[in-house]
């Protein structure tokens, strides 16, 4: 359409009007007549046998409607929650698959494990009754320490199904080849790192509401889901057995997910199941403390890595050994995150010819761990980008130069990495050059000296990330064990009056689809953006789709919309040809008008649409009436955004406080639809990455298994004053295999930032002899590291 609203325009977000005026409609806002309220009783122990549960006193409490325990669920033959990605170990055996009951039956395995569900007339009455439930626990030893998970004698989480806490021992690459390369290396850099565990903290806590219609036997479940169709599929096919057509799942406005709302959780399962037993609607909204305890957490790796370089500083080989925490149960996509979304990314932007990675997935008595913004890719980037910086420091060469020397050359694309992925496109040198320019890398030593005069230690850090997102094609994902397709759907449905609904299988929970997708359709069809309504989140109205995760919505969902728009144009051409009495082959579509080339004949799209719905002058014998087109798009490859971030920090050596004083990000996201939205995504991602690097840490007490960082009193969420204004840039190489030439931008900030920040911290502390600071680099952690270095220097 016009330049103000088309592709490339900074269109203000359509959805902000309702979000900023408090008129969004979230699950908890639902007015449901005769609603009851659920409250879940949680285990206070990290590991215990349930000897008995006495609900008799609780059942007679005021307002109590019903109380369910694990036994009720088992008696009703409700299935367990599933893990949807089968990872085969290095012997070709599928991963261990311990049961994941919807409610604990005889054992609780982490603090927060669900023990009973109380349904009452009000939330407070449900909570009062839950306090009156008497559970007799036989408390057992627990292990929350990932590094110790496989040690002899460590308490087992699922002793029978996963002996020794091992879910899989997986590998990629040929170990012997990598060892041979190390044997002839001129230099080897080694590193032991912990990728800290994070708690997602979406602004809106998880919530569910369900209503059962006795007359039709239909269930409606409202859920804070990132992918309502997939949730329905899992609940129907594996857990509740409700036929898919008798279950409608609606994910209305959802206030953030970051991955944590991809998964099928027990609470929404219970709310749905119990709604027919109670005969009244049931509502549940997590309290913040429950979110901390029971949302799937992210990251949590312990890794040893080694990088071999030749005498010219070319990377010869990379060797990585990682233990990945799964928590106490396998969440929906947990197994894929530290394997296919992690180890396959270990080439980064480099030509490293040989890579071997061994990943062991471990059970611990902690909340399940699954995908969280970046999902595996931040962990991979952190390994690569910290070890490359460490190598540069050890070899005393410029950190940017070492990167540049090892970049995949621009002419080498498409580029086959040694870890399965084939990068479709990329052009890395101009990205780092631009970042260096924006960040004034040349002026850094001057700024370092100036900071020193103020008693501050200033450091600079690089992170040149690669991301693989918009997963696909489905065939490959299936070969790798993924349990679902990776296409996306779209439907463009014109109304007779000429406005249009765009139904997408993607889901927006902060990503601005209502704006970006409307821009696509407005631009492509030449219609005003105000006449385009993007509809998502309801299985009853939208075509089956995979939802939003892995930075896929535009690359895959947007491509489906383009395909549907092509069908609209193709049909419109036939109608217009009829109206203009011209040959279809002569009709062109330009700026919302069908024209016959070389003539002044013209049919606006609106006129073609009207003719399709009021087909009085219409080729009915050849063409169906109506203007309503569906498309499904299965990507032929992943998309590969890449970029470089440069972070500058200043450290107060007296207190250990790290301040991010400059942060630059230059990205290649392919073509950009709405730069403002993309910048917002990058900003948010960087803040989460800075959060991981400096602030956030999920900590369980090693003795008791209690979650010590269970509230904002102890879990450090990044705040606005923790980050500077970011400096952003773009270098665009369009994706060659999707119709929009777009890549993904949702996770990039969070993927790149932790390494950039930590490399800056290491650079700042290098003069003190420090080579490693554990992440997050909290004031305590930095101070202790400085103390350790000073003690060592004194020895």
């Amino acid at each position, binding site marked *: 359409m016009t330049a103000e609203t088309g592709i490339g325009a900074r269109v203000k977000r359509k959805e902000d009007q309702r979000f900023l005026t408090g008129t969004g409609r979230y699950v908890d806002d639902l007015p449901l007549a005769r609603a009851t309220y659920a409250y879940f009783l949680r285990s206070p122990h990290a590991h215990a046998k349930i000897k008995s549960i006495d609900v008799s006193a609780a059942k007679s409490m005021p307002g109590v409607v019903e109380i369910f325990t694990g036994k009720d669920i088992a008696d009703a033959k409700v299935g367990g929650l599933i893990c949807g990605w089968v990872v085969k170990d290095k012997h070709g055996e599928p991963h261990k698959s311990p049961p994941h009951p919807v409610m604990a039956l005889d054992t609780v395995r982490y603090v927060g494990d669900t023990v009973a569900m109380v349904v009452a007339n009000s939330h*407070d009455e449900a*909570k009062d009754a839950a*306090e009156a439930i008497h559970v007799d626990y036989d408390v057992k030893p627990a292990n929350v320490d990932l590094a110790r998970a496989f040690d002899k004698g460590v308490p087992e989480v699922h002793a029978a199904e996963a002996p020794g806490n091992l879910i899989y021992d997986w590998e990629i690459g040929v170990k012997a080849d990598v060892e041979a390369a190390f044997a002839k290396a001129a230099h080897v850099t080694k590193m032991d790192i912990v990728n800290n565990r994070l708690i997602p903290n979406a602004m809106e806590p998880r919530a569910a509401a369900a209503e059962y219609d006795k007359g039709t036997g239909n269930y409606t479940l409202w859920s804070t889901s990132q992918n309502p169709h997939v949730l329905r599929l899992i609940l129907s096919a594996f857990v509740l057995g409700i036929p898919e057509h008798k279950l409608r799942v609606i994910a209305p406005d959802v206030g953030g997910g970051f991955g944590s709302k991809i998964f099928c959780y027990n609470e929404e399962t219970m709310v749905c199941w119990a709604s027919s037993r109670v005969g009244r609607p049931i509502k549940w909204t997590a309290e913040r*403390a429950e979110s901390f305890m029971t949302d799937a957490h992210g990251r949590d790796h312990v890794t040893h890595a080694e990088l071999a370089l030749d005498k010219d500083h070319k990377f010869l080989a990379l060797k990585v050994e990682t233990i990945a925490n799964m928590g106490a149960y396998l969440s929906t996509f947990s197994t894929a995150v530290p394997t296919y979304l992690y180890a396959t990314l270990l080439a980064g932007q480099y030509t490293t010819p040989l890579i071997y990675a061994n990943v062991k997935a471990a059970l611990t008595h902690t909340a399940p761990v699954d995908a969280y913004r970046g999902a595996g890719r931040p962990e991979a980037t952190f390994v690569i980008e910290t070890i490359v910086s460490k190598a540069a420091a050890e070899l005393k060469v410029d950190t940017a130069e070492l990167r540049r020397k090892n970049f995949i050359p621009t002419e080498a694309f498409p580029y086959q990495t040694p870890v399965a992925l084939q990068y479709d496109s990329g052009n890395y040198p101009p990205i780092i050059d631009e970042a260096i320019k924006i960040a004034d890398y040349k002026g850094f030593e001057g700024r370092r000296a100036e900071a020193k005069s103020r008693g501050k230690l200033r450091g600079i850090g690089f992170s040149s990330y690669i991301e693989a997102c918009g997963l696909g094609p489905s065939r490959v994902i299936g070969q790798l064990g993924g349990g679902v397709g990776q296409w996306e759907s779209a439907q463009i449905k014109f109304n007779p009056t000429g406005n249009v609904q765009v139904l997408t299988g993607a889901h927006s929970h902060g990503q601005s689809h209502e704006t970006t997708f409307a821009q696509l359709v407005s631009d492509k069809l030449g219609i005003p953006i105000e006449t385009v309504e993007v509809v998502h989140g309801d299985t009853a109205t939208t075509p089956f789709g995979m939802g939003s995760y892995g930075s896929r919505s535009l690359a895959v969902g947007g491509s489906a919309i383009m395909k549907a728009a092509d069908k609209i144009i193709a049909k419109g051409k036939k109608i217009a040809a009829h109206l203009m009495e011209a040959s279809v082959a002569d009709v062109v579509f330009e700026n919302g008008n069908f024209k016959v080339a070389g003539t002044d004949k013209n049919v606006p799209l609106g006129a073609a649409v009207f003719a399709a719905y009021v087909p009085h002058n219409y080729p009915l014998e050849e063409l169906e009436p109506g203007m309503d087109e569906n498309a499904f798009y299965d990507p032929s490859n992943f998309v590969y955004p890449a970029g470089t971030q440069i972070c500058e920090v200043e450290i107060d050596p*007296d*207190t*250990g406080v790290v301040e991010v004083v400059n942060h630059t990000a230059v990205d290649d996201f392919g073509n950009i639809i709405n730069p403002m939205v993309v910048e917002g995504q990058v900003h948010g991602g960087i803040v989460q990455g800075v959060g991981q690097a400096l*602030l956030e*840490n999920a*900590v369980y007490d090693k003795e008791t298994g209690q979650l*010590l*960082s269970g509230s*904002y*009193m*102890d*879990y*450090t*969420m990044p705040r606005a004053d923790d980050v500077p204004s970011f400096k952003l840039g773009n270098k665009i190489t369009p994706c060659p295999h999707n119709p929009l030439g777009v890549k993904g931008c949702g996770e990039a900030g969070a993927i790149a930032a932790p390494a950039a920040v930590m490399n800056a911290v290491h650079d700042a502390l290098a003069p003190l002899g420090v080579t490693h600071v554990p992440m997050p680099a*909290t*004031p*305590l952690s930095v*101070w*202790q590291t400085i103390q350790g270095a000073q003690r060592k220097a004194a020895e």
Partner: protein
Amino acid sequence: MYDFAYHRPKSVADAVALLKGKEEARPMSGGMTLIPTLKQRLARPSDIVDLGAIKELAGIKVEGNNVVIGGMTKHGDVATSADVKANIPALASLAGHIGDPAVRNRGTMGGSVANNDPAADYPAAVVALNATITTNTGKHTADDFFKGLFETALSEGELITSISFPKVEKAAYIKFPNPASRYAMVGVFVAKTAGGVRVAVTGAGPCVFRVKAMEDALAKNFTSAAIKDIKVPADDLNSDIHGSAEYRAHLVGVMARRAVDAANK
């Protein structure tokens, strides 16, 4: 939140009568600690006696060499008071950095001091300035008032009516905030008044405490150099995921030096 009876008396006498007459009654000033505690079901009072309508308890006045602040005076009012800013600027600055604007517009000095949270800011000011705490039944010196973790010299039915702070010659408060909660992990109030030099530390231990060695050194030479070698023992200090006792002990020294430097500016 459990159910409770709510009262909003208009006088101290009525408040005290309510507090003494009920089994598990709790006074509430700003409620900035009590309400979250109730919401988390960590307290179950039978009655809440809201002191918010007792007009005599709020307000700031200068009496001779002292600034007298009513128990129900809000942090925001202390922070912006011309009398406080003119006579004890460090106290105004401290008040202006408690919590966030919402907390500063609800929370009160009396509530904070009576609660004696180990990470609260005001106790450091009260002790360092050797303030006098006046209640409906009498007076307490600062040194005798703070007894331990959430423990004070207040007896049942005793309410802080005002706190009297002497004008200062030099003073400053510097805190190191807990990265997550932003409560004081270590806060040091250094004050030089007609009565001498005092150094009070909050956040680091279970209760506010004075560092006599620093006070003696500063009395002779009020510069940060004078205390640079004074170490605070870590033995009785708090330790948690954000700060070990050793780290807190170290921070006491850093914050004290910075406070002295700030006071000398």
